């Protein structure tokens, strides 16, 4: 199975009318076919792995000097766009030559396996091989949109528009913009106290809308409200009267004072 997986991509290069389906043993790749070879393999590790697994090639048997010379020629002939890819192969050739030269040096009496210069290459080859197989497995796994079909029945979308959220910052920003543009408000300041007064103006108007006529003293809750609130309430009544929104009446001196909305009878 391993072999079948690794040699999934058949080599099918046509050079001067002649079809090449296997790699030449001397590894010589005619420049015309270089691109095809490079496409058949994912890189020098892939090529090396193929040679080792398929042709039982000993890493050290690769005629590296020749190979390197050939690569140098390719690089010269290739257009700059392919240079990067050729560089990867060149780097691998350099690595193999280095390994070979180190192997040719006189061996110490005992060589530990981790000192073997080939060990690192073998580790990389095997890691790449495993990743390659993992990639094939991932490719074969069922995927959503390919062989996994997910339920997506229809439902009637009821429009339940939520109203926009408004934050305190949004509101004050809007007010700031209003003030910025309204020149006659340029020097206008709104204090907290004034806001309380204006709020009470609304409260009093709301009350008078339902109760029509209220005795002045009933507008003050002397039991519940503290002095400050009573003051605010009084200021609100004065402001409403000033703006002509309230009518304050008293029949005779010392009789009850009544407050009503101006314009109602």
């Amino acid at each position: 199975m391993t072999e079948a997986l690794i040699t999934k991509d058949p080599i099918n290069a046509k050079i001067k009318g002649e079809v090449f389906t296997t790699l030449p043993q001397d590894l010589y790749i005619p420049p015309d076919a270089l691109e095809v070879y490079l496409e058949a393999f994912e890189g020098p590790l892939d090529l090396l792995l193929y040679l080792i697994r398929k042709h039982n090639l000993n890493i050290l048997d690769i005629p590296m000097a020749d190979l390197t010379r050939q690569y140098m020629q390719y690089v010269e002939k290739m257009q700059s766009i392919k240079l990067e890819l050729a560089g990867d192969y060149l780097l691998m050739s350099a690595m193999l030559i280095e390994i070979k030269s180190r192997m040719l040096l006189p061996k110490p009496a005992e060589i530990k396996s981790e000192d073997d210069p080939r060990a690192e290459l073998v580790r990389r080859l095997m890691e790449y091989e495993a990743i390659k197989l993992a990639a094939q497995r991932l490719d074969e796994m069922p995927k959503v949109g390919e062989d996994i079909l997910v339920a997506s029945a229809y439902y009637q979308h009821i429009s339940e528009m939520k109203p926009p959220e408004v934050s305190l910052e949004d509101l004050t920003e809007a007010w700031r913009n209003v003030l910025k543009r309204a020149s006659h408000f340029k020097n206008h300041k709104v204090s907290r106290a004034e806001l309380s007064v204006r709020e009470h103006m609304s409260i009093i108007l709301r009350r008078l809308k339902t109760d029509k006529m209220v005795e002045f003293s009933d507008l003050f809750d002397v039991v519940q409200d503290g002095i400050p609130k009573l003051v605010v309430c009084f200021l609100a009544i004065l402001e409403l009267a000033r703006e002509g929104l309230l009518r304050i009446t008293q029949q005779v001196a010392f009789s009850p004072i009544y407050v009503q909305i101006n314009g109602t009878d």
Partner: protein
Amino acid sequence: MNQTHNIAELKNVLEAALLTSQGPLSLDDMTRLFSERMERATLRMLLDELKQDWANRTMELVQIATGYRFQARVEYATFLTRLNPEKQSKYSRVVMETLAIIAYRQPVTRGDIEEIRGVAVNPNVMRQLQERDWIDVVGQRDVPGRPSLYATTKHFLDDLNLRSLAELPAMEDFVQQEIPLDT
């Protein structure tokens, strides 16, 4: 399993197709499901049966202009809508500024707002704020035309997480002597 041999299996294929399809399936679509030839009459019969099978269940098989589809029964729509609440749009600048003027200057008439903003106020703007229950009419000014006086509501304070208008940021460049509200 490339050949289907009995009614139940044919119905299952149709059910799976209709439940996973992104859009409605036409009879032509459905014939493509099967490698063997499928008569439209057979398909219609199968769809009828499928409809019956689902008669008392969560989905109903309906026929619309472009074909057939399964759809959730309408009583489930309220639940499903909760999963994808529609994106809330933002209020326009006009709406926000009108709200700000009412909040800071209440009680005000539309005329007051127009005077401050320098442009006419679209009645639609007031309606939006009233429908939200953020403003209401607290009276009329005693001038010709008796224009309505608008103020913010308690609901507005609740929605903005305020206890009173005094908690609105004051627009003052210097700290004024404040009347403390809580003593």
